[in-house]
């Protein structure tokens, strides 16, 4: 397997000039090598990456003073072999649309690139040649500026968004069906807008369903309703001020987002937190992991029409939130980690509270199995439904429990073995069917595994240790990528630092974003009720998708 990676590098060197290939320090930058590929070769390169079993982890652009860089991150399921491929696009002086120029699209190779490229289009104005549906993704379609350009000063935003009632009316027209590219209407078919106001879209998501009777022919998720542009926000703040943003992306599992940011900056600065800090971090993240899965389980079963499990899940989640509140003072949008340490040490009552929680929750898990897992109606509703094949998972860059349910044991906690995870004993639950039931089963088993981790951490917790550290104010110049396993999949941050107090560019690679884009391969042929079940089974959190 390692040989394949070398092949990929050798293969790249044949394509490009050797001096454009750089080895990188993985421990510091999060990537193994970096290659600058000419614009006309990128499609060929992407195709080779796909055949070698790489998935497209992240795709973004950076606006430098003299040029644009389109940055592709590829990673593998089996080994941490992250590769960074860049394409340099010259600035177009007469560009009407931001000036990032025309790029070849790779959305026909990696379907996940579809949304990534649309995002680059709306933030940088880059046009992708051959892209099937190059429209604004997160911003309103009539928005005229390109906010991630460095030349964007924000003055246009005010006039754009709140300009007049006319604009709002124009936008309202969107809701009267506008045919997306992938759906062509036949006689007797009709469209149903599932959302943005709907009980089961878990936030403000709109799914445009193409129906024939109740049979679903196609589905197109339309996102952006809770877009707040965290990436731009972070560009105008210093590194420390970015912390609250990370608590508000995935508000259900915010602790892993704290972890991701802490890990990124610590690796960039070369800091090593004390063992006590690492233990507390793992403890709180895993507790949050369970809380997130519990919330998912409750709402997912609610989608299936089972009301009661929701309250049981919330009862358990409440216990966890109480414990986390003791540690952090917050119940939802945690802002607890700091560079090289934590906001504060945990109080002494926490370990006994956690130890008390564990047996109670174990008993509850048994109840869940009797009440839900073995319920014939539940099995009937979920087995063989919404199948995600490995091939599609690869093309859509699906990660997390959704991927593991398709039989791929990819978990960054093991793959990148960060923090104290290599020292802990836990398994990566997988299922083979890739259906809704498998996704349910994987998440329930993950709760059991997280419980195992928590138990070990409680026993190993160092009695004392420094939880704060003196750190430099700015991050050394360079590019860094760091990823952690969140409750929904691999959460990656790509940081370009110019050595100043503020990040030059931060790209948030959120797991639900890619996972949701895979929805359209799972739904065709099922019924409206199944769409809800499938949507629930991917476990999406909209603010994380819309950022």
């Amino acid at each position, binding site marked *: 397997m390692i040989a394949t990676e070398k092949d990929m590098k050798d293969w790249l060197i044949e394509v490009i000039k050797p001096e454009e290939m750089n080895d990188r320090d993985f421990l510091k930058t999060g990537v193994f090598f970096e290659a600058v590929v000419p614009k006309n070769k990128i499609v060929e390169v992407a195709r080779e990456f796909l055949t070698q079993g790489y998935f497209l982890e992240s795709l973004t652009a950076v606006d430098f003073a003299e040029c644009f860089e389109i940055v592709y991150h590829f990673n593998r399921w089996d080994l941490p072999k992250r590769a960074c491929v860049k394409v340099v696009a010259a600035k177009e002086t007469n560009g009407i649309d931001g000036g990032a120029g025309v790029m070849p699209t790779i959305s026909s190779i990696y379907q996940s690139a579809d949304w990534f490229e649309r995002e680059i289009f709306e933030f940088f104005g880059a046009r992708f040649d051959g892209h099937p549906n190059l429209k604004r993704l997160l911003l309103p379609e009539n928005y005229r500026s390109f906010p991630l350009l460095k030349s964007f000063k924000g003055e246009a935003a005010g006039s754009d968004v709140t300009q007049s009632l006319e604009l709002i009316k124009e936008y309202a027209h969107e809701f009267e069906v506008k045919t997306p590219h992938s759906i062509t209407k036949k006689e007797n078919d*009709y469209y*149903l807008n599932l959302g943005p106001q*709907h*009980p*089961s879209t878990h936030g403000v998501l709109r799914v445009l369903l193409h129906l024939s009777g*109740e049979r679903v022919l196609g589905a197109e998720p339309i996102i952006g309703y809770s877009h707040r542009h965290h990436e731009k926000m972070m560009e105008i703040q210093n590194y420390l001020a970015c912390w609250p943003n990370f608590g508000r992306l995935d508000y259900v599992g915010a602790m892993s987002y704290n972890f991701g940011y802490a890990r990124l900056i610590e690796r960039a600065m070369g800091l090593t937190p004390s063992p006590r800090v690492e233990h507390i971090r793992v403890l709180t993240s895993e507790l949050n992991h369970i809380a997130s899965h519990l919330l998912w389980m409750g709402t997912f*079963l*609610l*989608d*299936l*029409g*089972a*009301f*009661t499990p*929701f*309250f*049981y899940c919330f*009862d358990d989640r409440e216990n966890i939130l109480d414990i986390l509140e003791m540690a952090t003072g917050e119940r939802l949008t945690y802002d607890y980690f700091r560079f090289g340490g934590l906001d504060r040490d945990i109080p002494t009552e926490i370990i006994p509270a956690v130890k008390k929680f564990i047996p109670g929750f174990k008993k509850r898990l048994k109840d869940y199995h009797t*009440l839900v897992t073995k*319920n014939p*109606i*539940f099995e*009937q*509703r979920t087995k063989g439904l919404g199948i995600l094949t490995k091939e599609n998972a690869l093309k859509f860059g699906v990660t997390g429990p959704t991927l593991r349910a398709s039989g791929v044991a990819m978990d960054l906690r093991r793959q990148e073995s960060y923090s104290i995870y290599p020292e802990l004993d836990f398994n990566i639950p997988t299922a083979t069917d890739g259906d809704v039931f498998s996704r349910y089963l994987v998440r329930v088993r993950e709760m059991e595994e997280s419980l195992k981790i928590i138990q070990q951490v409680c026993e190993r917790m160092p009695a004392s240790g420094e939880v704060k550290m003196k750190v430099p104010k700015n991050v050394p110049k360079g590019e860094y990528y760091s990823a952690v396993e969140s409750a929904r999949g691999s959460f990656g941050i790509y940081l370009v630092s110019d050595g100043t107090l503020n990040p030059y560019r931060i790209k948030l690679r959120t797991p639900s974003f890619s996972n949701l884009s895979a929805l359209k391969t799972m739904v065709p042929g099922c*019924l*409206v*009720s*199944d769409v*809800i079940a499938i949507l629930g089974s991917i476990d999406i959190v909209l603010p994380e998708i819309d950022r």
Partner: protein
Amino acid sequence: MILNEILKIILYGTLVILFVSVNALFLVWMERRVSARIQLRRGPIHVGWQGLLQTVADAIKLLTKELVTPSHADKFLYWLAPVLVFAPAVAAFLILPLADHVVIRDLNIGFLFVFSLTNVSFIGIFIAGWSSNSKYALLGSMRAVAQNISYEIPLLLSTMGVVMMSETLKLSGIVSAQATTWFVFPQFLAFVIFIISALAEANRAPFDIPEAESELVAGFHTEYSGMRFALFFLGEYTAVFISSAIAAALFLGGWREPAVPWISLANLGPLWYLLKTYAIVFVVMWIRWTFPRLRSDQLMALAWKVLIPLALLNVFFTALMMQVFEK
């Protein structure tokens, strides 16, 4: 004579409507308390004794709410639908035998009258979905009609065994025929089929597919508000009550006290009847808060592939047994 008859109609009408309203309020309260017990909650406890007045407060809220009619709706049909859903449910009270000879109208066609009336309410449901001019409402009413037509068959077939054993369609006659044994013992399979089909007829979970709120927002009554919505609500709870009351009369001996020697409360017929009915209602609620919802095609498969063959088998075996034991 005619005047007397008219007065009787007015009196009974008022009594029934009064009972329906109070009963629905009570059932809603009961549902909330039962679900709360099942879900580790407490339910309404603050308004009135044990929260009994909470539903009254809610009813006042619904009564005072604005009646919104969607701009694209068919106004007359939109107005008609809730009435069509509610009225048949009330009319079914006419034939319930509360005690020996205490019944408003002891019709010869008996419970067939109830089932034919409840079918009228499906037309109301379909009209509601159609006239709202909303896709969710239309999908909901489509599902409702398909579901109700399918479940009518096992529902009626399951009662056939009882009819054969008691040799009458009159509810009072059926109750009299249960003097020695309740029909639930010889007709247990029919009882189960009846309860399942009645759940589906009343659109109750796990068969609440027409109003599946996580899928269709609120199904056929998505666009309704205020008192019109309340009429659908009343209709649903009354339908549950009627189904349970019919089940109690057909299978649990109606107003007859349980055949336990040390309890001689024979004169409290209506009380026993209500008790049995509420016991069935409780089971219905229990089921609702325990199971996830079925999918519409699975629901159809259950009716056509499982319940109807079983109900037919039950009719066959009942006939066979009657032949074997009586000759």
